[in-house]
């Protein structure tokens, strides 16, 4: 007699007692995720503070030129004051879901203690936050949410030499051009030549990186291409053929900041134009004085 019928009925019967309490499991999971985030944030905060202190000391006290691109003084916001964070753009951090229209201070992925300059954008109707990025939320005819494209801001510390292998990270070097060159040279995507650009009054380089339509990521780590990471465990990655990352790599007050608009072939030209328009309207604010 074939064993298959017994396998089907026996396996079902032997697992019927597994009735997880989903409410309990979900709340346990979210508590764990929250705890891990707090631990990471504390660690990254200490690291960021140390890096900032080192940069200040090296560039100020010792007079060493770090070779970083300088912001355009004519277009840069005025220096930060010590005014407490009471007014100005609404912090997007911690918000997940549909946003009311208005100015929002974006998360800088990789800046654990929110101390570094950050980007503010004007969110129009239909905006959505993924707690890390801003998304255009188009709606279907039935009013169901369809999230399209994403705008995010990053500190990118390391890039992969082979995006198919997530363990091939290297330090690209400190300057805007170092990062643009390293990303453009990665196999697995086509790249435009890095071109000079100004965003939010700060100079940098603009580059577009496209995953080819015939890309096959089945043999890659986590079945995706991993391009870079910040110093907390967030990764610039994609597994979608045809996905395009539009990068504005800027030097803002000694910090290399990357604005990324990611879209996929499913995104319409309107969505792409909207996201790029929002990215191009970026202003740079100081967390200590968001109105600066």
């Amino acid at each position, binding site marked *: 007699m074939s*064993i*298959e019928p*017994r*396998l*089907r*009925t*026996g*396996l*079902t*019967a*032997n*697992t*019927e*007692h*597994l*009735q*997880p309490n*989903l409410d309990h*499991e*979900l709340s*346990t*999971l*979210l508590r*764990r*995720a929250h705890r*891990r*985030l707090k631990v990471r944030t504390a660690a990254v905060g200490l690291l960021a503070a140390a890096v900032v202190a080192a940069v200040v000391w090296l560039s100020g006290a010792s007079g060493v030129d770090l070779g970083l691109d300088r912001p355009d003084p004519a277009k840069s916001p005025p220096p930060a004051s010590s005014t407490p964070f009471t007014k100005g753009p609404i912090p997007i951090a911690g918000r*997940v879901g549909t946003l009311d229209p208005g100015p929002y201070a974006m998360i800088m*992925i990789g800046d654990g203690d929110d101390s570094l300059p950050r980007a503010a954008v004007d969110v129009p109707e239909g905006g959505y936050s*993924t*707690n*890390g*990025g801003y998304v255009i939320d188009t709606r279907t005819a039935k009013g169901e949410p369809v999230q399209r494209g*994403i705008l*995010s801001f990053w500190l990118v510390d390391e890039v992969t030499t082979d995006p198919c292998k997530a363990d091939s990270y290297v330090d690209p070097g400190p300057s805007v051009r170092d990062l643009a060159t390293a990303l453009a040279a990665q196999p697995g995507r086509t790249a435009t030549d890095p071109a000079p650009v100004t965003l939010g009054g700060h100079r940098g380089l603009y580059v577009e990186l496209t995953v080819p339509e015939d890309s096959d990521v*089945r043999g890659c780590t*986590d*079945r*995706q291409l991993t391009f870079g990471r910040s110093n907390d*465990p*967030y*990764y*610039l*990655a*994609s*597994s*979608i053929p045809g996905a395009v990352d539009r990068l504005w790599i800027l030097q803002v007050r000694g910090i290399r900041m990357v604005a990324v608009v*990611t879209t996929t072939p499913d995104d319409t030209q309107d969505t792409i134009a909207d996201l790029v328009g929002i990215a191009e309207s970026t202003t740079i604010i100081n967390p200590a004085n968001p109105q600066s």
Partner: protein
Amino acid sequence: MEFEWVFRSTYPSVLRTAYLILHDRGRAEEVTQDAFLRLCERWHGIIRIDHPEAWVRKVAIRSAIRQAKLSRLRFSSSSPEEPTAWDRLPDVDLARAISALPAQQRAAVALFYLEDRPVDEVASLLEVSTSTVKQHLHRARARLADLLAEQQEEVSGDVD
């Protein structure tokens, strides 16, 4: 797509598969929770995962297989779960027979016969070729048939 929706719709079946690989409810819950934790962290970050259900299932299966292999090395002479818990299963003979299979075969059997997934999807989840999956299933069926026949003979012998 909401994380909570993916969690609620996928967690039970991922837990079942992990349980059939590990034969230990506590460890299966641990592996499943860990896989969803990884998904949750990525979900609220920036990374887009095209098929979160498949992704989390793959992470859990990979981890369960790894743990099953390790526990086989550590506890090769003992049952993976307390005998009292085994005895409460409706088809305890099948459970014991399945626990004798290699972890990869258990995973293939769970995905194919319990989850009713087609061979190519099982191959994708296990990151092996379809012919390897067919081989796993063929060997698992043959081994299970032998083991269950032996158990049947033992029972018959006891009755006689």
